[in-house]
C-alpha cells in the first residue's frame, strides 16, 4: 500500500510539468495578450508595442515558460501581471471557497445519492421508476438554470437565502452557511443523480449475492444487512464515482460561481484566462492538478480500507 502511495506521488511530478507546459501553450494560442487586455480597442500599434515591451511579452514563449518553471520549482508562483499580487495570495482565499463548495456539494450528493440509490434498490414497481425519471432529470437540466430558479424562488420571492455572495466562516458562521445553501444544492444535483444510479446498480448486485441470503436466513436485522453488509460490498464503485463527481465539479463550479457571484477558482480561471494573466492561469492549473492527484489518492486509500485484498496486492 505504501508503495502505491509513493508511486502515485512520484508520477505526479511529470504530470504537473506536462499540465503547466500545455497550459502555457494553450493560453498563448488564444487571441490577444496582456497588453491588449489593458488597451482594449484603444492604443495605436506603437503604444501596443511599448506596453508589450513593458510587460516582458517580447521574449520567446519557451524563455517565458523557462523563467516561470525555474521560479515554480522553488515554490515561487510569481505575481499577477496586472495587479502585482502574489499568485499564492490571489488563489489562497479562492481555493478555500472552491474546496468548500465542491466538498459540501460532493458530501450532499453522496448522502442524497446513497439514500435515493438504496431506496430505489430495495423498492420495486412505480416508486423505482419515479426515482429513475427524477434522477435522469437531475442530470439533464443545466445546473445554472437550476441555480437561477432557486435564486428567483428562495432568495428573491421568499427571502430565505441571499441571492449572491460569500461570507467567510470566521466573520459569521451562520451567514457562511446561509450563503452556501443554494449554490451547494445547485451543484449537488447532477452528482446526486450519478451517485444514486451507481448506488442502485451496485446495491442490486450486492443484494443478489448468496452471502446476503445466508445472513438473512441467520436472522440478521434488515438494517444490518442493508447498511452494514450489502452497502459495504457496494461501496467501491460508489467511492469511485464520488471521486469522479468531485473532480468534475472543479470545472462544474464555473457557472454556479458566476450565478451566485462567489469568489471561487472556477470563475476566476475563466476571468484570468480571458485577460491572459499567465502566472495566475498557471497557478490555477497547478492547484487543480494537485487537487485531482489528492482526490485520486484518497479514493485509492478508501479502496484499501474497504477491500483488504487491495492492501495486500
Amino acid at each position, binding site marked *: 500500500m505504501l508503495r502505491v502511495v509513493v508511486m502515485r506521488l512520484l508520477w505526479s511530478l511529470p504530470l504537473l510539468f506536462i499540465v503547466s507546459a500545455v497550459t502555457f501553450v494553450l493560453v498563448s494560442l488564444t487571441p490577444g495578450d496582456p497588453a491588449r487586455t489593458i488597451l482594449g480597442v484603444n*492604443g495605436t500599434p506603437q503604444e501596443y508595442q511599448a506596453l508589450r515591451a513593458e510587460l516582458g511579452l517580447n521574449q520567446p514563449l519557451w524563455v517565458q515558460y523557462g523563467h516561470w518553471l525555474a521560479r515554480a520549482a522553488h515554490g515561487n508562483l510569481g505575481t*499577477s501581471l496586472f495587479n502585482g499580487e502574489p499568485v499564492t495570495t490571489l488563489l489562497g482565499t479562492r481555493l478555500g471557497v472552491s474546496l468548500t463548495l465542491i466538498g459540501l456539494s460532493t458530501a450532499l450528493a453522496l448522502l442524497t445519492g446513497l439514500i435515493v440509490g438504496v431506496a430505489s434498490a430495495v423498492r420495486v414497481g412505480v416508486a423505482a421508476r419515479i426515482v429513475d425519471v427524477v434522477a435522469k432529470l437531475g442530470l439533464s437540466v443545466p445546473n445554472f438554470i437550476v441555480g437561477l430558479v432557486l435564486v428567483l424562488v428562495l432568495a*428573491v420571492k421568499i427571502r430565505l437565502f441571499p*441571492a*449572491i455572495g460569500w461570507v467567510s466562516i470566521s466573520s*459569521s458562521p451562520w451567514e457562511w452557511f446561509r450563503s452556501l445553501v443554494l449554490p451547494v444544492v445547485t451543484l449537488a444535483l447532477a452528482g446526486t443523480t450519478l451517485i444514486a444510479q451507481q448506488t442502485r446498480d451496485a446495491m442490486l448486485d450486492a443484494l443478489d449475492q448468496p452471502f446476503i441470503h445466508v445472513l438473512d436466513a441467520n436472522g440478521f436485522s434488515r438494517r444490518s444487512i442493508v447498511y452494514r453488509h450489502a452497502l459495504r460490498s457496494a461501496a467501491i464503485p460508489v467511492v469511485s464515482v464520488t471521486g469522479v463527481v468531485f473532480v468534475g465539479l472543479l470545472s462544474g463550479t464555473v457557472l454556479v460561481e458566476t450565478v451566485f457571484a462567489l469568489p471561487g477558482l472556477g470563475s476566476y480561471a475563466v476571468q484570468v484566462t480571458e485577460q491572459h494573466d499567465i502566472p495566475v492561469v498557471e497557478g490555477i492549473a497547478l492547484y487543480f492538478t494537485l487537487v485531482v492527484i489528492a482526490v485520486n489518492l484518497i479514493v485509492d486509500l478508501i479502496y484499501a480500507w474497504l477491500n483488504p485484498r487491495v492492501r495486500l496486492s
Partner: protein
Amino acid sequence: MSDRPIAIRARFRGVPLALMAVLVGATAVTACSGQNSSQSSAHGTTAARGVLTIASGDATTTLDPGKAAIDASDAVYEELAYEPLINLTNGGQFLPGLATSWAYVGSGNKEFVMTIRSGAKFSDGTPVTAASVAASINYWRNANGPVVAYASAIKSVRATGPSTVEVDCAQSDPNLPIVFSRYIGAGNIISPAGLAHPSALQNRTFGAGPYMLTPSQTVTGSTYTYVPDPYFYDQSAIHWSKVVVKVISNDNAALSALQTGEVNVAQVGADTVAGAGSSLKLYTAPAQFEGLYLVNRDPGSPLANLQVRQALNYAVDREAIAKAIFGKFANPSDESAVPGWDGWDPSYMNYYAYNPGEAKKLLAEAGYAKGFTLTVDSLNQFEMSTVAQAIAGYLSKVGVTLDITATTTVGQYVTDALSKKYDVISMFYGGLPMYVQYQTIFAKNAGVFNPFATQSSLFDSLAAKAAALPGSQGVAGFQQLQQAVVNQAWNLGVLYADETWLTTSNISGFSVGPGNVNPDPGAIGPAS
C-alpha cells in the same frame, strides 16, 4: 436484470424512507430560521444607512489610474479613491475638484493653466501641491494606458508656482477639462508615495478622494471595500461608512441582488431591464453609436467610391433595426456622435433616409450594378454582430453581400481589424468629444478603427480649425466636422443606444444623462 428475491427486498422498504424524512425535515428547519436574521445581516438590506454596494460587470485588471480603462464598470474602482482635478458632474458640467480654477491662456487652445486647491491632502495625510499634481499627470502620460492617446497633444506639464500648474500642447486640444476630469482620468492625482512605488498602485489606492481601498476586506477580482478617507477636503460629501464594489458578471445575478437589496446599483443590459419590476429605479443615457466602419477605402475597393458608401447608407432601415434589437433603448441615427457631446447635430440624424431605390441607382452609377462582397470583422458583444447581421439583411437586397466573421474576444476583434484582411469593422463607440473621435477614428494614424490609414485632408483641416476655437465656436466647428463625416458617408452609422442602470429606491443622487455616461459614485447618498 436477473430476478430479485422479492420477499427480501420488500422487507427493507421502510428503512431508507425514515432517513429521507429526517434529512428533509432538518433542511427545512434550518432554512426557515434564517429568515429572521436577513434584515440585520451582511446579506440583508445593505441600503440601510452605512453601506453602499455597487455591482460592476468587470473585475478591474489593475487599480493603477495610469492603466485603468474608462468605461463605468472599470472607472468606478478609481473614482471612489482618486479625486480628479476637475469634477464632471452627473449633469455634464465642470466644477472644481483638486483644481479650483482653470483656463486656456491665449488663443488656439494650446496653453492651459490650473490653480490647485489649498488644504487638500492625500489619504496618507501629505499635502496636494502643484508639484505633486504635475508629477502625477506626467506619470499618467507615460504609463502606456489605454486612453493616453486622448492627451497626446500635451508636450509638457509643470508646476509654475506653489499652486499653479501649466500644461503646454504641441497642437490645439480643446478637451483638457475632460481629460483632467474623472472621465478620462489624467487628473486622478496620485500621491508622491504612490508614484515612488508604481507597482503598489496596482492593488492599493493613493488618492485624495472621499474613500480609500481597504485591502484586508478586499478579494481581488471579487469584492473591493472602500472606507472613508479622513483627509478628504469635503467631509460632508462622504455619505457611507463603507462602499463595496462587487464583481457580478452575470446580469441575472445582478438583478436578483438588486431585488433582494444586496446590491444598490448595477448597470445591466436592456433585455434584463424588462424583468426589473417596479421596486427598482431605471436610469438611461445615450451612450454609444453602432453600425459599421467602412475601413477599406483603398483605391480599387468599392468603398473608396463616395457613391458606393452613400448607397450603403441609403440601403438600411435604421429605425427598424434600432427597434428590433434594442426596443425603446436605441434611436436611429447616421451620425458618429451621441446627444450630449459636441459634434452631435440633430438635423443630420436622418440624412440618409431609407431608400433602397436610391441605393441601387447610386451603385449602378458607380459601376457596381452587379453588387459585390465585403468581409466584416465583428464581435459578439454589445449586440455588435446582431447589428451587423441586420445590416447585412438590408444590403443583400441591393446586391451587396456581407461576409461576417463574429469573434468572441476583444483581442481577436482587434487583431483581425489591424490585419487589413477585412473591408469593414463592426462599429461600437462610446460618448466622447468629437476631437477624440477624430484622433481615434478619422485621423490617418487613428489605429484600430482606421487600419488602412485612410487620410482625409478635409477632416484634418476641419478638426484642426475647430480644436483651436474657444467654447461654443469650437462646438459649432465640430458640428461641421460631423456634417462632413456624414456627407462623405465615411462610415455606416445605424443607431445610438442607451446604457441602462437599475438602482434600489433607498438611495439618492444617482444619475446619468446626455454628456455623462459614467455615474459619479461619490454623488450617491441615502434617500432622504
